[in-house]
């Protein structure tokens, strides 16, 4: 009896333990063809686990559901398994952690928003593989009375296959002349309404004008303010494209930020308080844009309409301060994140048209993403891209006119990724490697800008030579780095990626990303580049060129480990170690504003002779044409002259000025203020 009693007790305990440790049911299998979502109910006893899953106790304040993704990765192409949990009360808070294989396996995704009644996370087979995954549902703050309910269904994957592209924009490179801009590591650029660019290169603030009639010409002028020309750890420049005000800031060793601003393109400068805070020791950034209306005590104090933000790090916390008077003074800084949450460095501040503020980070909870604020920088939420992995250089954000956010980042595997979000990072779409079409293996210095809702550009330095030593300290890395610009016109579904300077690399050999520990000659480009658009939507990329002499550009093996002795390969020893201010500017093709598009060409031009006239018809493919021009040649398909200018949307024309027994050649093109379309096909009509 005694033995059987103990045995029964063990059985009961085992049953309780087994059932309490998992959801009801505890597991399921899903395939790509599954149409009915899998469901389960929570069985947690109660309590909270504020440390997430680190210290939660299974069956007490965390619960698991085991899901098996049946089939192959290929069968799941374009699809993902969405894990969703719901509960009743916003005060309750569950978080999701998904691990491959077992609870200690690699993390596939997590979701941990607050003040909601649901969480979504994704298993993306193209990234995470298939097979068994454990979904760990953790009580952050809840009671057993508000159990979660879970579902898993099949949804489109946010990762897409890189597209073939549509049309390649053309770019022209402009280097600073006459000894200017020779210390341009970590450059930033701002575009003025006049079309001029403001460019910061170390202690020099340069103004650059471009000759619209001759794309090869530019004029560089030094417009530095004395205040920001003395000393610096981190130079930064920001131009508010709405107001035209340009800010320049330099960070001093004593944690002082010296800042000036100009409203007249650098002719005169006005002093700023600087950050006005204990401004930190590293990697400052300035940004700005509209205020979110209605936030108490966080609106404009003066006639200057927009917010200006300053961010840096200090005492282990990334902080941001708001200026409500156009950058003259700054409020007290508030924390955005701490080093337990994210890496210390951040990318550049960007502000959406609705006032939402974004600060990107290359490493938050092992992924890349941003901190986002919807109350003019007062409180912050961290959001990351599913499937992304911590990188070596800052990600960058471009915000389109509808608020769509394009996040460009160099993944830990060196690939150049872009992810798009339309809900401030709660969900992501069109996550893809935009360097794949160019075989990019190593990427650094992401810089993104956007224009119309579906248009964005992503600038990065890329190398087709694989190997992690490309961003390490190894001067024998044999790759060359070129400036690439990827452009999308369809919301990030397709990207056209081009080498914007194919005959002149930005660097030969390693680009060390290890900060001040980098060996001499490997960190000449420092930590980031920049990309902004002008009023016509043309991207302007700012970078430091590390390879400027003819020998370096041509790839001559000049040196090796032993000073002055070639080592048989073109590597970091053959680089110039320069940091020359350089701008790559779009000079052809569609820009990021459709208002400046040339019209699309008409097609399917057809016609015949219908006594006594020639009648033509074509397909109107343009949406922005102002007129159509019909051209005719009397002799061949070369010597055309205009015979008619027709109103927009025309699709036919009757040419009565014809003579019998003559052949006529016709072609048509669309015209608007931005230029002319390509011609239609040419047809020959014989007047009988």
């Amino acid at each position, binding site marked *: 009896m005694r033995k059987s009693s103990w045995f029964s007790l063990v059985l009961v305990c085992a049953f309780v333990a087994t059932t309490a440790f998992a959801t009801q049911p505890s597991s399921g299998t899903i395939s790509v063809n599954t149409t009915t979502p899998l469901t389960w109910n929570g069985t947690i006893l109660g309590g*909270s686990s*504020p*440390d997430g899953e680190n210290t939660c106790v299974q069956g007490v304040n965390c619960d698991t559901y085991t899901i098996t993704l049946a089939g192959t990765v290929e069968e799941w192409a374009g699809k993902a398994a969405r894990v969703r949990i719901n509960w009743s009360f916003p005060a309750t808070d569950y978080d999701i952690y998904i691990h491959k294989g077992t609870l200690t396996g690699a993390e596939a995704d997590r979701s941990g928003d607050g003040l909601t009644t649901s969480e979504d996370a994704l298993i993306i087979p193209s990234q995470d593989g298939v097979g068994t995954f454990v979904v760990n549902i953790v009580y*952050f*703050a809840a009671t057993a009375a508000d159990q979660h309910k879970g579902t898993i269904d099949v949804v489109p994957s946010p990762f897409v296959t890189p597209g073939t592209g549509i049309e390649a924009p053309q770019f022209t490179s402009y280097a600073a002349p006459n000894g200017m801009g020779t210390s341009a590591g970590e450059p930033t650029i701002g575009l003025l309404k006049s079309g001029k660019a403001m460019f910061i290169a170390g202690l020099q603030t340069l103004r650059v004008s471009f000759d619209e009639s001759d794309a090869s010409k530019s004029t560089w002028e030094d417009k530095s303010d004395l205040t920001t020309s003395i000393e610096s750890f981190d130079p930064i420049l920001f131009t508010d494209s709405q107001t035209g005000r340009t800010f320049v800031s330099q960070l001093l060793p004593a*944690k002082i930020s010296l800042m000036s601003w100009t409203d007249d393109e650098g002719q005169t400068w006005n002093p700023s308080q600087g950050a006005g805070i*204990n401004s930190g*020791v*590293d990697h400052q950034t300035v940004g700005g844009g509209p205020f979110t209306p209605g936030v*108490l*005590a*966080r609106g404009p104090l003066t006639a200057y309409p927009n917010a200006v933000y300053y961010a840096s790090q200090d*005492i*282990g*916390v990334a902080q941001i*301060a*708001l200026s409500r008077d156009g950058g003259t003074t700054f*409020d*007290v*800084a*508030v*924390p955005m994140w*701490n*080093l*337990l949450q994210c*890496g*210390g*460095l951040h990318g550049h501040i960007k502000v959406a048209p609705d006032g939402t503020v974004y600060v990107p980070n290359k490493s938050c909870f092992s992924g890349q993403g941003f901190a986002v604020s919807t*109350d003019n920088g*007062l*409180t912050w939420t961290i959001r990351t891209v599913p499937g992304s992995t911590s990188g070596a250089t800052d990600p960058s954000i471009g915000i389109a006119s509808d608020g769509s956010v394009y996040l460009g980042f160099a993944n830990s595997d060196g690939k150049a990724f872009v992810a798009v979000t339309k809900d401030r990072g709660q969900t992501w779409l069109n996550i893809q490697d935009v360097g794949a079409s160019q075989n990019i293996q190593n990427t650094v210095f992401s810089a993104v800008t956007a224009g119309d809702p579906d248009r964005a550009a992503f600038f990065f330095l890329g190398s087709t030579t694989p190997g992690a030593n490309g961003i390490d300290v190894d001067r024998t890395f044999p790759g060359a780095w070129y400036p690439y610009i990827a452009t999308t016109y369809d919301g990030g579904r397709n990207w056209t990626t081009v080498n914007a300077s194919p005959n002149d690399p930005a660097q030969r050999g390693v680009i060390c990303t290890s*900060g*001040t520990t980098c060996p001499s000659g490997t960190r000449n480009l420092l930590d980031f580049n920049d990309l902004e658009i002008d009023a016509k939507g043309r991207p302007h990329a700012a970078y430091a060129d590390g390879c400027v002499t003819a020998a370096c550009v041509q790839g001559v093996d000049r040196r090796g480990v032993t000073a002055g002795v070639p080592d048989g390969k073109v590597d970091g020893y053959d680089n110039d170690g320069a940091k020359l201010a350089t701008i790559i500017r779009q000079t052809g093709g569609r820009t990021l504003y459709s208002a400046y598009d040339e019209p699309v060409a008409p097609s399917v031009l057809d016609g015949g002779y219908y006594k006594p006239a020639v009648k033509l018809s074509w397909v109107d493919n343009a949406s922005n044409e102002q007129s159509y021009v019909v051209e005719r040649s009397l002799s061949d398909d070369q010597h055309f002259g205009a015979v008619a200018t027709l109103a927009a949307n025309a699709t036919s024309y009757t040419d009565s000025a014809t003579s019998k027994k003559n052949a006529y050649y016709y072609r048509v093109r669309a015209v608007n203020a931005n230029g002319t379309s390509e011609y239609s096909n040419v047809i020959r009509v014989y007047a009988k």
Partner: protein
Amino acid sequence: MKRLPFIIIVLILGAACASTRPIVPLRDLLGVTVDMSRDEVQTALSAVGEKQRDERKRQEVWTLRDDASYEGAIVGYTPEWKVRFITLVARADGKPVQFADVLDVAQATHKSAGSTHTYRWHPAGASYDIVATGTDRVQYLTLTNEN
């Protein structure tokens, strides 16, 4: 009844004395003081947590094992590897720490942005500041010898 005013006066005086009682300034956080050597920091923090990683600018990130109030610590060093700051990060649902628990709020400089408050106190005779930031309770607590 005659004693009631006297008792009230005593209570008021007591409260006043209590409120003006000098606060003993924190000299260390988890055994770490400013200017401490890196080796000493490793010894002190290894007893209560694990180092997660090194960060740029000579910083270390630590998580704490069993602290009821704080989940982690960030330590920054000078080029000579002496502590220039240590910051404790409060647990979101940990045992709350009030500003008055860690510094003299009457003596400290106070700045706020929205509901976020920062108190900075330089204790008399000390070579460091105590900085506390948070909303209704301390979110970050720092000892630093930097301005």
